[in-house]
């Protein structure tokens, strides 16, 4: 089946069995290995991507349902080889240890901040509750997302807000 969709801002066409998982299409057909398989059952969130503005488990989405969709993966966060503020905060706060949950975590965080730019720590916890991490205890991940929210606040109040 031929599917056309926009992935990280680029329109792509792939030909795949309709029930092939979005996760496998990303990793195999598109060579975007950022999204990971941690469980194959929608529990760990390591496969999280944003589809049409909503974060989902790509291990549970068959590609036939992605016709015309807009997909964002971790590879689409940084631009021109520079980390975006969320990634930078993760790096500075020590939010990534082994890194395997990190792509999914970033995606869930991005999805949260798009909808709720000023989340409380509790709201952050709820937003990443579908992303399991075994290394960090979640503390520095929450710190990083909180810091990004505050940085966004500062930027949006500054007169340089429109500059990249």
């Amino acid at each position: 089946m031929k599917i056309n969709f926009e992935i990280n801002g680029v329109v792509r066409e792939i030909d795949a069995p309709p029930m092939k998982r979005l996760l496998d299409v990303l990793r195999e057909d598109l060579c975007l290995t950022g999204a990971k398989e941690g469980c194959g059952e929608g529990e760990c969130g390591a496969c999280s991507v944003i589809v049409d503005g909503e974060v989902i488990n790509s291990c549970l989405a068959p590609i036939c349902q992605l016709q015309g969709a807009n997909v964002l993966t971790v590879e689409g966060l940084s631009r021109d080889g520079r980390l975006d503020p969320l990634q930078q905060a993760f790096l500075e706060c020590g939010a990534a240890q082994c890194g395997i949950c990190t792509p999914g975590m970033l995606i869930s965080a991005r999805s949260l901040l798009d909808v709720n730019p000023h989340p409380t720590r509790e709201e952050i916890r709820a937003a990443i509750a579908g992303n399991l991490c075994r290394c960090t205890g979640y503390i520095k991940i929450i710190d990083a997302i909180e810091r990004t929210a505050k940085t966004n606040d500062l930027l949006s109040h500054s007169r340089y807000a429109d500059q990249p």
Partner: protein
Amino acid sequence: MIYYPTVVTPTSLEEVYELLAERGRRAKIIAGGTDLMVALNANSLAAKEFIDIWRLNELRGIDDEGETIRIGALTTYTQLIRSPLIQLSVPALVDASQTVGAIQIQNRGTIGGNIVNASPAGDSLPVLSAFDAEVEIGSVRGVRKVSFNNFYTGYRQTVMEPDEVLLAARLRKLNPNERSFFLKVGTRRAQAISKVVMAVKAGTTGAEVNSISIALGSVAPVVVRAFRTESLLTNAILNATIIEQARSTVSQEITPITDVRSTEHYRRTVTGNALARVLWRLI
């Protein structure tokens, strides 16, 4: 999955009916995939053909019908959580939706899927039961309505025929003197299958119970209503004694089991405690 199943993507409800009439015995309907894809990934689902209804917007929408609300089968948990109508008129359904999995699942899981998946632990099901919901089922033979409390015929079995598709669930909004409650005890605080799940809808005047429905999941092969306990409480004045009686009656009424997640004793005891807690809040 070992074999990739084939998929047809109908673009209208009529087309769905025709497909089901032709191949409903062997083809499975797929919506958000949050149950079916897990089974496919685990190689525990044998279906080789799917009918993909995810884009069928006719099955979406939360409609205000005056005294009732009609919820399209493809309504996701996120849509339920965000709906001002549901927040106001069926708040227990918002609570239930927020306990399903986590955000990723809530964005794709549908109420229709929860209903037809027919798990005794389905989180929205006690709410539908307590609200005496009605389900709309369609096929080439027309549309029929079934009371939700008659929908299940046994463990993971429903009244649906192979050529039928679930269209919507309809429930009555809360009356001014009514309140609804939802309580789930899961294996952890998110991404949890329930050990005990309860929804209560009660109409009171002061401490007097005018009407009450108590629906429970994970304590029987299907979602059940605690009719004996409801009888005990209807027209009763809530006080410590009657609440204790209700606690005891509901514990005895259910038939929970011991399984990989929990024990019979725990489920019985906690169901009683959960009801007591809700009843105290009613006073």
